[in-house]
């Protein structure tokens, strides 16, 4: 069960949203996601992963910061760009990587692939390939919490491209009408495939897209895990208090192509390099940790530990056998 809400809480200043130990934990999860995704990219290039594979590199602070505001029992749902969300939810990197290689040790026994993984145990509801569809589904997760009268919250993630889909606004209306506990999180990484947000949305401030329904919202620096946590806390508290949904627009950036095949002609190399050099979420967290007294050697140790975990996952993903041919026919309907 999620922790009881502290109704007296006010949003804290970003710098105060995590103490050193918590920031260190967030930093290692972010690093795990970064290294995991780099490895996935490598395995794709070797032909061990196929189909669509959308990397989360650059956006790590968003999901990690949000995860630090929630607890057991809260739900997470997102699009196909889902590896980071699963790792942040505490799913095993081995099972995620083995799903990427389509092996029986994967979270969906190899039947789902990069875009479609789920974990009932960790409250992760997928992994969805149809742009925007998860927003209504996430609203339904919130509905189920409202129906049962618990204080759980649904974290519903979607891209700024998805934010133009009609069902997003149908969901906003429903959740505000019924006061459902849903935190809608727009991961505005500025591009939907090759289309920049300016070319796709007439709304110049996506954080205001819930205004007609009276939905409270915030625009957040999604490259700063501390700022994400500070905003996320307020949003989650609002939902837990039964006041209805909350909208967070995370301003973030994806460093890699949309999926593995990406002509990269819609933005300049300089733009990407500038984001990496000046706004990287890992660099930012690391600098803050050093300010808080961590030394480089300790951080290096964390890095080594993360690398070893990722290598272990990659090894597992290659040695795990392919699914048995009979698996083709299972799980279509519940039998019996």
């Amino acid at each position: 069960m999620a922790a009881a809400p502290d109704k007296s809480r006010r949003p804290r200043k970003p710098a105060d949203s995590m103490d050193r130990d918590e920031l260190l934990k967030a930093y290692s999860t972010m690093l795990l996601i970064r290294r995991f995704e780099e490895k996935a990219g490598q395995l794709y290039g070797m032909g061990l992963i196929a189909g669509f594979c959308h990397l989360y590199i650059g956006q790590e602070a968003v999901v990690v910061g949000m995860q630090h505001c929630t607890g057991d029992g809260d739900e997470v749902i997102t699009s196909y760009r889902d590896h980071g969300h699963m790792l942040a939810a505490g799913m095993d990197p081995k099972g995620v990587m083995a799903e990427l290689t389509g092996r029986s040790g994967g979270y969906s026994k190899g039947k789902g692939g990069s875009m479609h993984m789920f974990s009932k145990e960790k409250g992760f509801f997928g992994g969805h390939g149809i742009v925007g569809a998860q927003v209504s589904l996430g609203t339904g997760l919130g509905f189920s919490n409202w129906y049962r009268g618990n204080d759980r919250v649904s974290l519903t993630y979607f891209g700024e491209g998805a934010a133009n889909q009609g069902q997003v606004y149908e969901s906003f209306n429903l959740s505000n009408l019924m006061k459902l506990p849903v935190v809608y999180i727009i991961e505005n990484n500025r591009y939907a495939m090759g289309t920049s947000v300016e070319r796709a949305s007439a709304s110049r401030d996506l954080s205001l897209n819930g205004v007609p329904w009276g939905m409270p919202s915030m625009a957040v620096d999604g490259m700063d895990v501390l700022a994400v946590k500070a905003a996320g806390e307020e949003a989650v508290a609002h939902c837990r208090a039964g006041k209805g949904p909350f909208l967070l627009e995370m301003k973030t950036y994806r460093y890699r192509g949309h999926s593995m095949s990406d002509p990269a002609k819609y933005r300049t190399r300089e733009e990407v390099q500038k984001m990496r050099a000046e706004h990287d979420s890992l660099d930012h967290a690391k600098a803050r940790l050093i300010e808080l007294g961590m030394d480089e050697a300790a951080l290096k140790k964390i890095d080594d530990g993360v690398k070893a975990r990722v290598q272990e996952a990659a090894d597992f993903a290659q040695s795990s056998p392919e699914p048995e041919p009979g698996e083709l026919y299972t799980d279509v309907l519940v039998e019996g």
Partner: protein
Amino acid sequence: MVDILMPALSPTMTEGKLAKWLKQPGDEIKSGDVIAEIETDKATMEVEAVDEGKLEEILVPEGTEGVAVNTVIARMGGENAPAAQPDPPAPAPAPATPATPAAVHKTVTEIPEAGWGETRPMTVREALREAMALEMRADGDVFLMGEEVAQYQGAYKISQGMLDEFGPKRVIDTPITEHGFTGMAVGAAMNGLKPIVEFMTFNFAMQAVDQIINSAAKTLYMSGGQMGAQIVFRGPNGAAARVGAQHSQCYASWYAHCPGLKVVAPWSAADAKGLLRAAIRDPNPVIFLENEILYGHSFECPVSEDFVLPLGKAKVEREGTDVTIIAFSIMVDVAMKAADALAELGVSAEVINLRTIRPLDIETIATSVKKTSRVVSVEEGWPFAGIGAEMIAVVVEHCFDWLDAPPARVAGIDVPMPYAANLEKLALPQPEWVVEAVKKFF
């Protein structure tokens, strides 16, 4: 030393051209640096470094075509170069390879059509582009809209160059709002414009299916013939390679079920060019089901600017006397391969390429089945209430007394598409399945 390998950059890529090196031997490379540019038939893509170190040696010079995935293209050294590729700890099962090779060229058995005139080899991709461009030059009311069709040049590069030629008013990038832009296009068509709506894939047309069925397909009827919608909905349909359950399904039978729509599924480049032009000119809503894997396939295609094919006419792609194999889209490849294999067994198979699924060319089918007395339908989609079921009903209705064996159907396995390489292969019809079905007739 660390080997840099030719990477696979898309679901169907098996080889590519090493277009350009952006780093030279001696350069220090940081993770994330772009080191080279690679061209495939779809796009030019950048290769980013994963490891850090110094580029020691370039093994494949720029400009080299047909570099296979996983070829060592360069070597990197330097103290901080970590091991580039993990050593697989235990021999793993066969590594995942795309289910279908990218560029299988066409079988030689196709019968050239009378009256085609001069032909040249053309990919299905080029043929589709040419069809749209020819129609747009001829008729100012025709325009193209969809996601990434303009500036990006098309997610699958079908509309490459069209923004340049026709400008942003006639080649329109839409947001990801299928339901909205489809309704908008249908509305425009009700008022006399002739939209071509590209769905990035037909999987996403599900978001818009209400406007296709309830608005586009029914308006003519509901208005007592006053107004309809001259509109083409086109895009890739069916399985590509390893893209999983939500991105791999065949919609032929879904749309064919609905009166008020025409449903077309080209196989060759000539089909693509001739049928798409006819679809754009047809005064009705037409669902035009393409296939991503076929986009890069090349076929002899008529060069004539007047070349158009009629909707509603199937084509006998190969003549035979013992059995009729009916297929559409990429399953014509499967049927042709099966016919080759059957020939070796002494069975002469006739292959019908449906071209149009609705209206169905019953005459061509019945003529063939009356000659061969045996029939098998082949489709990639699911069997239940599929096109094969319709095909067999038609054959039974029209050729019952001529049949020597119960009609058979080959279809995709009745499950959502799995991602795993081995399972995906098991889910999609193979030529051997057709051969086995035919063997049971004798």
